[in-house]
């Protein structure tokens, strides 16, 4: 342990602790900008500087470790003065469009400027006029707002190991770029959107389709249907004044109806459907009826899919051919639903609400047109839906709980846990057990695959067959399992990969933040809903039985193959 004093108070912390962390022991949260918990400290903004007796200069507290006998002052006049000047310098260059900025009310720079009392910007400054990067269907980057804190680069490199952005140039020309400035849409970007979460300002945002959705809703000739991913119900409330960990499934359906959607379905239905297809595929691979390699990888995370197509195309055959729930729902909304109701599928506008920025990309993939139309027309993020609810003046908190339309809206507990890391695995095992043994799995909670560990493994006894499974969330974590598989050394039968840390509850379209504790809580909310639902196995969902009886035939059948399965494309490395 290292003993030091901070603002005169004695503190003992383990060696290697940063001054910033040590200060928390004396109830001081040192203001900071480029530092973000969960990322390596970078020490470039210098906002977190403190005074250390005996040092000639101020010391960045995020990156400097404590030492024995150190005497630290966290808010001396010299420190406060320097912090103000540093923020003043950043503001001198920053566009003054706070009113219309995506990060209005959620901007760390604005908050910091207020909190550390920057009174005036005394520098003329220059407003940069860089070109926006609008090449991606998911993410827009505005380098003019960038404060060069490097958080997006750190999350892309260190957490996701995708490494498509980096600093270029030097001095005033420094900017975050993609290779040859080709733009996110033309590099290996997986569209995971974790960069959005870590950006302290409005320099990275989703490509919004709020206006397009409003236009569709107002068009009397259109029939607009909507689906919402499992993770939305665990996070939407946060954007609308509720604490983290509030399940808002009923209010979410109610709000969507009031926004004017013609029919409100639920992606959870399609998640159950995914399990039917994917569970059967897994059993087929294990029994040898399907001549494809093991382990089978899940395919519902479009960030992971694009990552695989770029970085691990040799594992393409291992990836389940099942479309993601969003993309199973899409074609069904323009075939099954249209047929049932006699609505001209041409008039159907299929909207999804996703916790995910990569879903915007996925919906636009050329192969996602099996209904004869673009299967999913518009993808809204959790944040975009929240803004629409606010724009419409819907008083979310007083809304009644309302169900989704059962035809494609009824769901089981197995579906709702799709939103948390490990959930797809657990859901699939519940059904696969039944498929293999003909009996129901007694103990439904497969706890080893739950929680926030980066890689989780379990062995499930299926009538004497030891089914080995693994789960990874965050692409950096996924690499361990992928490299093992690539080397032919994977002991697993089934592997779930989610691109985002925490799974979909931590998706790029969720309420801003890189707080893993909050993501864990959202996941727990979904497990709680699962526990409380009467039906907890996908194959028990009456609407699923109905869609097979009335329309699809059987899992992995001809119609399923056409509408619910897909293929992948090897993508070039830039």
């Amino acid at each position, binding site marked *: 342990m290292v003993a030091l004093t901070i603002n005169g108070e004695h503190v003992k912390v383990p060696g290697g602790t940063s001054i910033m962390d040590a200060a928390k022991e004396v109830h001081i949260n040192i203001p900071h900008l480029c530092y973000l918990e969960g990322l390596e400290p970078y020490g470039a903004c210098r906002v977190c500087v403190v005074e250390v007796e005996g040092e000639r200069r101020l010391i960045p507290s995020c990156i400097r470790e404590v030492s024995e006998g150190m005497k630290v002052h966290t808010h001396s006049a010299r420190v406060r003065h320097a912090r103000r000047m540093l923020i003043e310098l950043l503001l001198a260059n920053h566009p003054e469009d706070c009113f219309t900025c995506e990060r209005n009310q959620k901007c760390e720079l604005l908050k910091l400027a207020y909190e550390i009392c920057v009174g005036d910007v005394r520098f003329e400054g220059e407003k940069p006029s860089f070109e926006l990067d609008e090449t991606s269907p998911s993410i827009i980057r505005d380098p003019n707002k960038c404060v*060069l804190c490097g958080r997006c680069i750190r999350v892309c490199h260190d957490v996701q190991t995708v490494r498509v952005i980096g600093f270029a140039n030097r001095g005033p020309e420094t900017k975050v770029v993609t290779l040859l400035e080709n733009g996110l849409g033309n590099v290996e970007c997986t569209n995971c959107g974790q960069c959005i979460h870590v950006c302290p300002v409005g320099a990275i945002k989703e490509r919004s389709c709020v206006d397009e959705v409003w236009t569709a809703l107002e068009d009397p000739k259109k029939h607009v249907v909507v689906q919402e991913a499992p993770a939305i119900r665990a996070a939407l409330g946060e954007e609308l004044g509720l604490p983290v960990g509030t399940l808002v499934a009923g209010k979410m359906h109610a709000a969507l109806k009031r926004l004017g959607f013609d029919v409100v379905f639920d992606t959870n239905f399609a998640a159950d459907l995914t399990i039917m297809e994917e569970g059967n595929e897994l059993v087929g691979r294990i029994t040898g009826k399907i001549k494809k390699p093991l382990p089978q990888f899940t395919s519902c995370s479009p960030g992971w899919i694009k990552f695989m197509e770029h970085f691990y195309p040799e594992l393409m055959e291992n990836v389940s051919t099942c479309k993601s729930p969003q993309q199973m729902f899409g074609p069904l909304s323009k075939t099954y639903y249209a047929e049932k109701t006699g609505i001209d599928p041409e008039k159907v506008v299929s909207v999804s609400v996703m916790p995910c920025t990569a879903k915007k990309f996925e919906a636009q993939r050329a192969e996602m047109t099996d209904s004869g139309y673009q299967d999913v027309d518009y993808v809204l993020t959790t944040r975009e839906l929240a803004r629409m609810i606010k724009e419409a003046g819907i008083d979310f908190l007083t809304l009644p709980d309302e169900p989704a339309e059962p035809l494609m809206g009824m769901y089981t507990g197995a579906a709702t846990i799709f939103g948390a890391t490990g959930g797809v695995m657990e859901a699939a095992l519940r059904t696969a057990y039944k498929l293999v043994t003909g009996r129901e799995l007694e103990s439904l909670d497969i706890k080893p695959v739950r929680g926030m560990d980066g890689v989780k493994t379990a062995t499930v006894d299926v009538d004497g067959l030891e089914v080995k499974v693994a789960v990874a969330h965050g692409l950096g974590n996924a690499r361990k399992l992928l490299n093992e598989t690539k080397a032919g050394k994977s002991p697993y039968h089934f592997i779930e990969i989610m691109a985002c840390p925490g799974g979909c509850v931590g998706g790029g379209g969720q309420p801003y933040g890189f707080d893993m504790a909050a993501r864990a809580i959202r996941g727990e909310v979904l497990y709680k809903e699962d526990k409380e639902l009467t039906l907890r196995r996908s194959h028990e969902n009456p609407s699923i039985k109905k869609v097979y009886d009335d329309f699809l035939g059987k899992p992995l059948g001809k119609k399923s193959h056409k509408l619910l399965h897909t293929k992948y494309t090897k993508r070039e490395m830039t």
Partner: protein
Amino acid sequence: MERILLKDVDIPNLCEIDVYIDSGGYKALEKALKMTPKEVIEEVKRSRLVGRGGAAFPTGLKWEFTRKEKDEPKFLVCNADEGEPGTFKDRVLMKNNPHLLVEAMVIGGYAIGANKGVIYIRGEYFEEIGRLNKAIKEAREKGYIGEGILGSGFSYELQVYRGAGAYVCGEESALFESLEGGRGCARERPPFPAQYGFMGKPTAINNVETLCNVPAIINNGGEWYSRIGSPASPGTKFFCLSGHVNKPGVYELPTGITLRELIEEYGGGVKGEFKASLPGGVSSSLVTDTDVKLDYKSVADAGSMLGSGAVIVINSSTSIVDVAKSCIEFFVRESCGQCVPCREGTRRANEILGRFAGGKGKVEDIDLLLELGEVMYDTARCGLGQAAMNATISAIKMFKDEFMGRVES
């Protein structure tokens, strides 16, 4: 006046190994290899040699710190990325006497326990790069580099690495980043290079001129060296005299000679009337007192720094505002862009000084510049940002009337 490093510089073809050996070259290496590494370090410590790149850190101590580290392998890196405006001294050494540096690098490697040395050289020094590579090849052929040097158990490899033109890569931690293939951006310290340098390994990094003192120290003893020049920082120093002087150039002189002596006796006097000098290049503060002794301590006591010895002389026809503006422009361009105070501070200072230069200054901006300078000194990650405002601040303090004269009425 006695020269140490440039002693043999007039001998024709000194850059050829046979000529170098004939003039006493590689004798120091032979001697050093018969000493223990610790004895070599002790000898350097006795000389009280300090770093000639600007920071004036005691060289023997730096070597001792590196040697004491347990982590392996260790590296010796020579900082030959001479980029400070007005500095052109290392070039003279590398061009005329490359073997002196090679010999020093082998001795240094032996002393700190490194089997690998790298000379990180400014990219534009084409001729010097060629000469150093040739010298290394010759030294290898003669057995001064390679396996079991001169029958000792010491093996050493030496390599030249070309920089890509960024001034900041002369900053030691940015240099390591560049050497490792990264962006030339300064690292946070601690950890210092002695613990965490090139490839994260214990590294001693020394300036060309610093290293080139070592063979003479080994040959003649540290005691001998410590009696040359100013007692506080003994030895000779290369002064790169430029600006408004009649005979600009590189002069190797004992530390402690006065600025006046340098200008009058060696530089042929000022062109015009003396106004001020930047004794350590654009990173240093102005001095107006020509009686200041040119050694590290005396210049620091006068409120400036000797730095790498780039003495720039400014005459009375020059506007100090323009000098400050010109200095800061350099730093705007050369900031690595990583930390806020340097990246943003330099350009805001440039913006304000631009207004003064154009006669549109504001009175309140004078204090703002001083304030900015303080914050940059206090918070910038590396020496570049910390020192970027030195010239400006000293200009304001010494010649405030010139700034007031550029205020918009």
